């Protein structure tokens, strides 16, 4: 077809293409991505060091680095404080943020609604109902079972919501409506259970329900790392599918996606990513909803770069939230879920306000 000569060679500076010919691997990224990723990574690193150095027992940033590397520092206690107490919880916060952010980006992509949140899949309420129900009805509840109950509850809730939203094919609108409905049903059940709890159990339930990384251990870090190691790469590989689903069901079908299969897999990934955070730290709100928003502002809506940045933003957000949780009412600390809500809720309100105008 005839194309004017002048436009045949129009420049395309807006994209970075990564290609490894041997692996027949290629990805196209928005040009902003490399700089944004690098900046985020550096800020994140600085935040990590700052966070580890801060505490009742202050440690100089340089000593933090030495202790992390396992080198001797001026104070023999450094090694224990850094590697034993602070690093696990901070790394856990980082990974929880990354997982929630990726989960949120997926759910916002498939529902085509950027106010959606992983909670929409019933993750938090499903996990909450089972954990608080267990606290209520078990004769002698064992906290070690919480993570497993939470995982089962979270995934079961996501499954139920997906199944209920199925009516000769899934639809994102039905998914949102049923998700919102079941979440409030779960909330009601949790409140009912809480009224039947003993004071001690109720307190335990409340801490779990708001989300906390207090007293995290290396085994939790390893568990989390394992899950992220599997789920995040899969998510990144499905970036193009997310892009296409984001254009709506008709176009996604027309472009040749296997709509139901891709949507199911992506919902599974989103549910899995959020569920694992619930099992290690309880229900932490807003991180999954806010992070994709911030990342979208930085690199635009194409998921190849967006997912990468979202994960970094989410990690940074929770590292900062964790630091703030320990700092604002030191020597006591806030549950991290409270801090993310303090950061996230006004942002949500701001978005609603902006949209309303």
């Amino acid at each position, binding site marked *: 077809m005839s194309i004017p000569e002048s436009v045949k060679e129009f420049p*395309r500076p807006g994209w970075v293409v990564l290609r490894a010919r041997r692996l*027949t*691997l290629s*990805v196209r990224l928005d040009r902003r991505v490399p700089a944004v990723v690098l900046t985020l990574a550096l800020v994140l690193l600085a935040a990590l060091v700052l966070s580890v150095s801060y505490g009742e027992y202050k440690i100089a940033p340089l000593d933090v680095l030495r202790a992390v590397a396992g080198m001797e520092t001026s104070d023999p206690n450094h090694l224990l404080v850094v590697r034993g107490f602070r690093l696990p919880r901070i790394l856990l916060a980082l990974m929880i943020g990354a997982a929630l952010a990726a989960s949120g980006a997926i759910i916002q992509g498939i529902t085509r609604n950027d106010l959606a949140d992983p909670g929409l899949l019933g993750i938090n309420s499903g996990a909450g109902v089972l954990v608080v129900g267990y606290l209520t009805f078990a004769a002698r509840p064992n906290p070690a079972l919480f993570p497993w109950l939470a995982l089962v509850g979270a995934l079961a809730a996501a499954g139920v919501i997906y199944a209920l939203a199925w009516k000769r094919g899934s639809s994102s609108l039905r998914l949102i409506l049923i998700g919102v409905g079941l979440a409030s049903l779960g909330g009601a059940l949790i409140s009912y259970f809480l009224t039947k709890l003993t004071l001690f159990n109720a307190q335990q339930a409340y801490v779990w329900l708001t989300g906390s990384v207090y007293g995290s251990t290396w085994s939790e870090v390893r568990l989390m790392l394992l899950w992220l190691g599997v789920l995040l790469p899969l998510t990144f590989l499905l970036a193009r599918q997310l892009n296409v689903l984001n254009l*709506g069901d008709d*176009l996604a079908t*027309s472009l040749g996606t296997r709509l139901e299969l891709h949507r199911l897999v992506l919902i599974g990934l989103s549910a899995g990513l959020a569920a694992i955070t619930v099992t290690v730290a309880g229900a932490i709100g807003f991180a999954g909803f806010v992070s994709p928003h911030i990342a979208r502002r930085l690199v635009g*809506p194409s998921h*190849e770069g967006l997912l990468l940045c979202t994960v970094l933003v989410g990690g940074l957000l929770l590292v900062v939230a964790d630091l703030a949780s320990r700092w604002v009412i030191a020597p006591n600390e806030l549950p991290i879920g409270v801090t993310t809500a303090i950061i996230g809720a006004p942002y949500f309100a701001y978005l609603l306000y902006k949209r309303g105008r």
Partner: protein
Amino acid sequence: MEGIRTSDLSLAYDREMIIKQLGLSIVSGEITTLVGPNGCGKSTLLRGLARLLKPQTGEVLLDGKAIHTMPTKQLARQLGILPQGPTAPEGLTVYELVAQGRYPHQGFFQQWSDEDAEATREAIAVTNMVAFADRPLDTLSGGQRQRAWIAMALAQDTPILLLDEPTTFLDIGYQLEVMELIERLNRERQMTILLVLHDLNQAARYSDRMIVLSDGQVVADGSPHAVLTQALLAEVFKVRANIVADPDSGSPVCLPYRAVGAELIATPRPRREL
């Protein structure tokens, strides 16, 4: 190339049968337009032909093969569809949108090849969107946006393109721009184009063939000259109209002057002979 053929095709929304046992064939290399009054099933039929709607009975064949059992990605390299009023995520640029048209040509790991870049660039150039390539879609005019969507469908690089009311809600200048682009794609690339149009005169002006649907059935099918008759307009569209020749192209133009049934309540005015 045999093109698209349907046999005994019935399409329904929920329990309501919209298209009933329709047999139809779309000739390759032509511009074919589906027209008909509101609710006649023209958009439903287009969706059925594009496998966006599963048939209740019968099938849609593309070059002799049933499209609902064909691997969807393989079909996506044969047939593109632009639905009515598509929406893109906020902030998506024209280039990003058009690049997504390459989806059916990409693999799980091989996500962006030189051919993808070339096809995207060409689709943007052909639709005259070069100047807007880096602009977010939500900052463009209606006509530019529609051209961007058509560019996306072009990047898909299919021999057949289905469009659902591509000119609706556009100003008249933009409407013609879009129709001329469609005509060019057909003439210069031999693309088979099937579109749903609301405007009968536009359909007559740009189509090789018009298919008139009424209540889920084909009531007329042929060249615009053969199809646009006073009798058909009265029967199907419920208007009395004069048919004249477009001084520019010679294609038939209908000038409706009264709703059928209006005679009963209004006194007829003396008619000026044409």
